[in-house]
Structures are given as structure tokens and as C-alpha cells.
């Protein structure tokens, strides 16, 4: 096989990514350093604005809380699923997979119905006489968190179930025989073995929750912008393309930074597991 031929098969994919992913990215990145008084002028302007900082803070907070809640709910659920009989496990896996493959609009729309002013939850609470006037649940930061958890919990569960299936129950039995209580077993035996999977899940959920558009758009409304909805608003509603580009670059930077940290920590954990 000649050298030219070998590369021939790589050309379409390489060109495709270079021309349609990296070049457009450069095209939005360049004006952000050339239009200001100095290369970082626009960025320092953006990072000094109280409003924009609030958006960044909200984006990160929502992503962090979503990740934590999905781990807290996902871990026991995954353990429970992995301890079922094979037939049940398959049924449960399909139930978990179904929402993942269902359109995000549909899944968020469900929460509009539940959280709205005359929604299911308000009606229920009023019916039980727990509240006298409907609560404002929709178009809040909490609504975005609820929607994001709903969106990403199945992904966390499938990631954790794979790992939980690989646990050896005999180690837990041995610990129980020696007098360990379930919580000790969870902390000392299960968690260390599942730590890499928890981090993998956390990476998937954090990256997804931080950059998601549909959930904050549908459940947060116009007054609770996150970075992704801010990009769309600046670009398409206000026509401030350079500002939108600045937000886009900051979003890429932040997500790469957090994911890099999580991956670095996963790498350290993996090494520790291998050495053990």
C-alpha cells in the first residue's frame, strides 16, 4: 500500500472536521480578540459585568447541583438494578434507556405540565390544603435543576449499572460476616470500586448540564439565562455576534477546564486501583 493511498481514506473525515468544525470555531474566536481595544478587552469586559458573572455562576451552580443529585439518586438505583435477576435487570434497563432516547423537548415539556402555575404539583398541593396559593415553581433556577436531573439521571444510572454489575458480592458478604454494617460496606467496599464509574458519569452529566440549551430555555424562561441561552439570545435576538462569540469561547474554556480536572482525577484514581 503506497503512502498516499493510506492517507487517502483519512482525507474526507479530516477535511470535514477542519473545514466545518475548527475553521468556524476560529472564525467566531478571532473577532473576540481583534474587535476590542486589546486582545482581552472584550473578555475582561464580560467578566466584569455583574449580570454576565451571574449567568456564569448560575450555569456552573446548576451543573454542579445536577451532577451531585444524579450521583446521589443514581448510585442506590444502579446498585438496586444490578442486584436484580437477569430478566428484571433487562426490563429495568429498557425503562432507563427509554427516556435517554426520547426527545429532550418532550421530557422538559412534561415538567412544564408538572411545575406550571396551574400545574400538576400546585393542584396536588392545593388539593391537599398544604398551600393556599400556587407556588412559583416554573421559570426558576430550581426548575432548571429538576429538568436537568430528569434529563441526565438515566445516563448516570446506565453508566453506574455497568460498573455495579462487575462488583463481586462475595467481598460484601465477607465484610458482612465480619460484622460490617451496610453503610460501612457501601463506604469501604462499593464506593472505592465504583469511583471511576461515578467520575465517568459525573463527566457526562456535568458536560451535558453545563451546555444544555433546551432545559434552561423551556424551564428557566428569559429571566434565568445560562451561558447557552445567553449565546442564543445575544446572537439571534440582539444581534450582538461578537458578545455571543465571547460567551461561546468562555463556555468552551470553562467546560474544557472542568472536564480536564475530572479526567485528571479519574486518571489518578485508575492508577490507584491498578496499584492496589
Amino acid at each position, binding site marked *: 500500500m503506497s503512502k498516499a493511498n*493510506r492517507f487517502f*481514506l483519512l482525507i474526507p473525515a479530516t477535511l470535514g472536521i477542519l473545514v466545518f468544525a475548527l475553521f468556524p470555531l476560529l472564525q467566531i474566536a478571532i473577532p473576540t480578540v481583534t474587535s476590542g481595544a486589546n486582545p482581552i478587552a472584550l473578555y475582561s469586559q464580560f467578566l466584569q459585568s455583574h449580570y454576565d458573572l451571574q449567568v456564569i455562576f448560575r450555569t456552573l451552580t446548576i451543573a454542579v447541583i445536577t451532577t451531585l443529585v444524579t450521583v446521589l439518586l443514581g448510585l*442506590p438505583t444502579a446498585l438496586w438494578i444490578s442486584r436484580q435477576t437477569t430478566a428484571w435487570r433487562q426490563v429495568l*434497563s429498557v425503562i432507563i434507556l*427509554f*427516556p435517554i432516547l426520547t426527545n*429532550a423537548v418532550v421530557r422538559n*415539556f412534561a415538567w412544564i405540565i408538572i411545575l406550571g402555575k396551574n400545574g400538576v404539583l400546585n393542584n396536588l398541593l392545593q388539593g391537599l390544603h398544604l398551600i393556599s396559593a400556587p407556588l412559583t415553581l416554573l421559570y426558576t433556577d430550581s426548575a432548571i435543576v429538576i429538568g436537568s436531573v430528569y434529563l441526565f439521571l*438515566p445516563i448516570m444510572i446506565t453508566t453506574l449499572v455497568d460498573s455495579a454489575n462487575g462488583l463481586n458480592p462475595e467481598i460484601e458478604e465477607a465484610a458482612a460476616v465480619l460484622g460490617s454494617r451496610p453503610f460501612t460496606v457501601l463506604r469501604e467496599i462499593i464506593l472505592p470500586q465504583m469511583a471511576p464509574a461515578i467520575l465517568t458519569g459525573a463527566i457526562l452529566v456535568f458536560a451535558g448540564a453545563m451546555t444544555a440549551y433546551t432545559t434552561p430555555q423551556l424551564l428557566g424562561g428569559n429571566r434565568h439565562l445560562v451561558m447557552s441561552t445567553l449565546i442564543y439570545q445575544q446572537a439571534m435576538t440582539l444581534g450582538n455576534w461578537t458578545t455571543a462569540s465571547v460567551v461561546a469561547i468562555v463556555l468552551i474554556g470553562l467546560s474544557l477546564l472542568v472536564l480536564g480536572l475530572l479526567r485528571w482525577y479519574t486518571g489518578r484514581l485508575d492508577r490507584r486501583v491498578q496499584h492496589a
Partner: protein
Amino acid sequence: MLDRHNRVLQIIGVIVLALLILPLGIVVVTSFGTEATISFPIKGFTLAWYANIWTQPAFVSGFQSSLTIALLASLLALLIGVPAVYALTRFNIPKQGWFQTLFLSPTLIPEIVIGFALYQTLVISWRLPLWPSLLIGHLLLCLPYVIRLVTSSMLHLDPHIEEAAWTLGTSRPHAFFTIVLPNIRTSIVAAFMLCFINSFNNIPISLFLNGPSQNMLPTAILNYLQNNYDPTVSALSVLLMLFTAALMILMERLLGVGALTTTGTNA
């Protein structure tokens, strides 16, 4: 013991499963309601909202273009992705890791940014029509799935089988189609299904690249929800859930139950 009879695990597991299913169940119920705005529980039963879907041209044309774009983007991703994976796993390509990183790089860029950047470059600078721009955007979405899934199955395939065929006089392309392709079939089908579903459901990329003349179904629903709150969207959601269910059954038939649950992790 933390086995399946453990009370705490059982309670949390059941509650989480209920929380995952109930919201979708509520959507299904509201789609049959007779009142003009969405209400739950419903007062009467009607199928009128299902008929109403077809009176919304944005939904009908959106479904058609979402379907076409998803099919074409998945096929194109396979057409350019599989040869690239073959070259990377079989030829001694220098800087192999660089290519791998390059091909997976779209996953590192938030989808909303891909949409925005493509809008600037393709639509504004190059004055490309929306339809090819959408196809390119969705192709970028799909390519990493192909690269990831097909690479792992190529690495599992013993290269000696192919080499045996060459020694026996089979040409390289012929050996690829008769020996390699049948062996990596499962990963190709899985990649195609994942590409299709993710492209069909995608919003952030389509958002920037559609307009009044070019609708996509998810963004058409998003637009509709800005001004309306009637059970038409519930009815449409039910149809989309049925569509998802049909795709899952198809995946199970083509790949087996095991594949269904393992591909979920990559979604």
C-alpha cells in the same frame, strides 16, 4: 446486606423509577384531554389533538426534514467515518492519536457553539442555503459516534483473518467488503442507530440553522410552545415516544438486548 431485598435501596430504586416514568405518563394522559389548555387530571376524552398535529405545517414538514437529515447525516458519517477508522486501525499512520483526537473533537465543543459557529461561517459568510448547513451540522454531531464505536470493534477484529485473504489472492477492497465489513456489522448498525436518534432529537445545532423555510421537528415544537399551551404538543409527544419505542424494538431485533443497554451509555 445491600442485596435486592435491602429496604433502603428498594425504596430509592422504586421512587427513582417512578419519577422517571410518571412525567412521561402525565404527558400521555394530557394528550387525551378535552379542555383547550393542558390540564391534569383530564375532564373528558378526545383524540382531536392528534388530528390537530396534521393541521400544523411546521410539524409535518419538520418531521420530514428531521427524518431526511437524520438518515443522510448518519449515512454520510458512516461513509466518511468507516474508511478513516479502517486507515487508523490497519495502516501504520504516523501521529495516529492526533487524528483520533481530531475526529472526536466535535464532542468537546458544546452543541450550541457548533450551531452558532456554523451559522456564522456557512450561512452568513459563505451564503450556503440552510438545508446543506443543517446536514453538515448534523454530520459533525454523528461522526464521533461512528469513530468511537467502529474503532473499538475494529480493534477487536483479528487483522490476520484479513491478511489470510490477501495471501490467498483477494484484493484489499474485496477483502474489506467480504471479511471486515461483515465482522464489524454490529458496531456499524449501532453507530447508525445512535447517529440517527441523536440527529433526529438534536436541538442546539438545528436552532441556529433553521428558518421559516426550513423547519426541524424539535425546534418546531420549541417554537410552538412559545405561543401555545394546548394538548397538541402532548399528542405529538406521544407519537414521538411511540417512535422511540419503535426504534428501540428495531435496535433490539438488529443488535440484541445486550447491545441495547450497552449503547445507552454512549448516548
